[in-house]
């Protein structure tokens, strides 16, 4: 299966959205549509990946992404193994290249990797014949999160082209931000980022995004806000003085949203810090699509797994019926 190049335009691996074409991204989103329905069934399983072995290799703690991948894999009938960094050979000092060689020796079909270093997914993909899916590498990319955000935005607006989407918060440390920027731009959206300059990476304008330092301006501008998690560590490392001040200056509150010219759609990749980057009335309010994002996450990951395994986008409908 490894030398098959599916019609989606996806290569052997999914490392990031930066290198994908708009057509490929659209093909993944279109493939995800029929897979949404599987999760609504009483028996949530089709045999698309029967006999395939997948390792979920998580060098960083993750609950949501790991579970989402695991559901996607199991609902497609794959055999999966979860490896977490704690208690694994990594703790015993094994290098990533040795981990890669051992996986290769075990002849697994796919690896889903989450790693704290930017470039780790590419590093692994360059060294093993298995399909590699990046589940987040350092501050680089988190492509399936980007795809599920795109799918959710498309569900909300019926389109992506021409929309204005602003990513708010800790952009400098965010792999979600980068995948969103690349993916949204390729589908024709305008992208901005908003946050204190201490949390905005250098020369981000060169990526074609606008920078807002006032969240009120971002809200005036945007059709949708993707609100990033603000981690407590950022305060301790001196990027911001306090979470309280962050909420006061950058927190997405209903009062701020009420001044927007449109009903701004609110996304959040989770897990949320309620009362820090987002207020509860927004998170739980009618403009929030945070839970649909989670539902779409499973469908998007099923689509990626299916396509990397060699499935054709146009046959996804049959695949979900168990016919392909």
């Amino acid at each position: 299966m490894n030398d098959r190049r599916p019609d989606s335009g996806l290569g052997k691996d999914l490392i990031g959205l930066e290198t994908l074409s708009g057509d490929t991204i659209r093909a993944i989103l279109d493939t995800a549509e029929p897979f949404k329905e599987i999760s609504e069934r009483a028996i949530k399983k089709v045999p698309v990946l029967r006999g395939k072995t997948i390792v979920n290799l998580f060098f960083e703690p993750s609950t949501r992404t790991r579970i989402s991948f695991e559901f996607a894999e199991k609902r497609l009938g794959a055999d999966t193994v979860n490896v977490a960094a704690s208690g694994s050979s990594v703790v015993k000092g094994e290098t990533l290249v040795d981990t890669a060689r051992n996986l290769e020796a075990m002849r697994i079909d796919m690896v889903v990797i989450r790693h704290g270093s930017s470039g780790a997914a590419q590093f692994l993909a360059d060294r093993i014949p298995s399909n590699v899916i990046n589940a987040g590498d350092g501050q680089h990319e988190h492509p399936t999160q980007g795809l599920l955000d795109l799918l959710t935005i498309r569900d909300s607006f019926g389109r992506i082209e021409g929309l204005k989407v602003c990513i708010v918060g800790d952009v400098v440390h965010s792999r979600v931000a980068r995948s969103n920027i690349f993916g949204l731009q390729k589908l024709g959206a305008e992208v901005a980022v908003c946050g204190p300059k201490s949390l905005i990476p250098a020369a981000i304008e060169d990526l074609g995004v606008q920078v807002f330092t006032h969240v009120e301006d971002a809200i005036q501008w945007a059709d949708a806000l993707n609100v990033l998690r603000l981690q407590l560590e950022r305060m301790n490392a001196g990027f911001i003085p306090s979470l309280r001040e962050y909420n006061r200056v950058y927190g997405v509150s209903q009062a701020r949203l009420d001044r927007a010219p449109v009903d701004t759609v609110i996304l959040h990749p989770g897990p949320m810090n309620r009362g820090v980057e987002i207020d509860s009335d927004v998170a739980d309010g009618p403009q929030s699509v945070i839970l649909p994002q989670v539902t779409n996450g499973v469908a998007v990951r099923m689509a990626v797994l299916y396509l990397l395994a060699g499935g054709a986008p146009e046959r996804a409908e049959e695949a979900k019926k168990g016919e392909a």
Partner: protein
Amino acid sequence: MSRPLHIFGGRVVDPSQGLDGPAAVLVIDGRIEAVGPGVEAPDGSESIDATGLTVSPGLIDVHVHLREPGGEHKETIATGSRAAVAGGFTTIWAMPNTDPPIDDPAAVGYVRAAGRAVRASRVMPIGAASIGQKGQKMTEIGELVAAGAVAVSDDGHPVHDSGLMRRLLEYSQTFDIPVLQHAEDPGLTPGGVMNEGAVATALGLRGIPNAAEAGMVARDVLLSELTGGHLHVCHVSARQSVDQLLWAKERGIHVTAEVTPHHLLLTEELVRGYNTQAKVNPPLRVVEDVDAVRQALIEGVIDIIATDHAPHHYDEKEREFDDAPFGINGLETAFALCMKALVEPGHMTLSGLIDRMSCSPARIMGLDTGTLRPGAPADIVLYAPDESWTVDPARFYSRSRNTPLAGWVLPGRIRRTIVSGETRFEAEGDA
């Protein structure tokens, strides 16, 4: 007494005495006896036919990491000095950031003695500026110099504390040695692994801004002005640092500076794909910086070229980008890379390059080499400036292979390297 050595038939390029033309060089007892078109071989001479080759004073590299003691899996004094002569260098200065660091006279003596024993390039030890290179307490610089140290540096780390830097620039004057500074403000580079900018942002890698270097250079030239000490700025990479150096030189401050071959040509684009071979500190920057440091070298704002030869074992570079060590293996590609960066495009003459790689290093550091003047030690390099070759790290004399230049075709091939009249390197199968 060895036989006289007569090198004839070549083009002699020695900017220290304005020579560029056909000439012969006569060496007697390890020193230059005569150089000129009409210099004949005395009876019983050994002859070297340099027809088709260029003959210049041996190259001098004041910034080399030999890794011994403590890092012998990367490089040793022996392998490093053999790599040096293979690259045309007759003198190398060994940085003290070994394990343990070269911070006492015994360690200095060890490097010096081990270097002599190899009989390749001259190896001159640089002593640590602070004990343990911890940036706190000054080393016994007098003792280090007495044991053979030619300079002090905490390279690998900056001397961060302004008070210590001031004391170093004051105290070193007693011994007439420079303080070599790795200019970096660590407060601006936490976790930094490449140049700060659009590429780092796209790759999600933490950046090292130009200001981290230039800010330190600005402070240090002011301390040099304050104290009168000789500040030598290592591996200048940022265009803003050039501005500081120009300002300092115009004011007559005793500052000198070096640039590496890689910073004269390569840019941060090489890092794309998380190429750890291009991970180096200071980082590869953008084309505006490359243009600025090259122009500064041409104009003499930056005085010399030095490699910052930083060998690393292949396992260490075969890592996640964040975890791979900084450094490029430079000795055996330096001359050719400079030919490609400077001479081939017409930015500098060959004579200018020899000046920056031999004469000027000797001049600013007070060495008696870097010239073919009669009486000087006969440190000579013979090379074919126009001959192209393909970089094959597997053939390096260095113990390590870490270079982003593997497979590059470069002009300028070293054919023979002579130290004190003795051939210490000869390219295989020719001339």
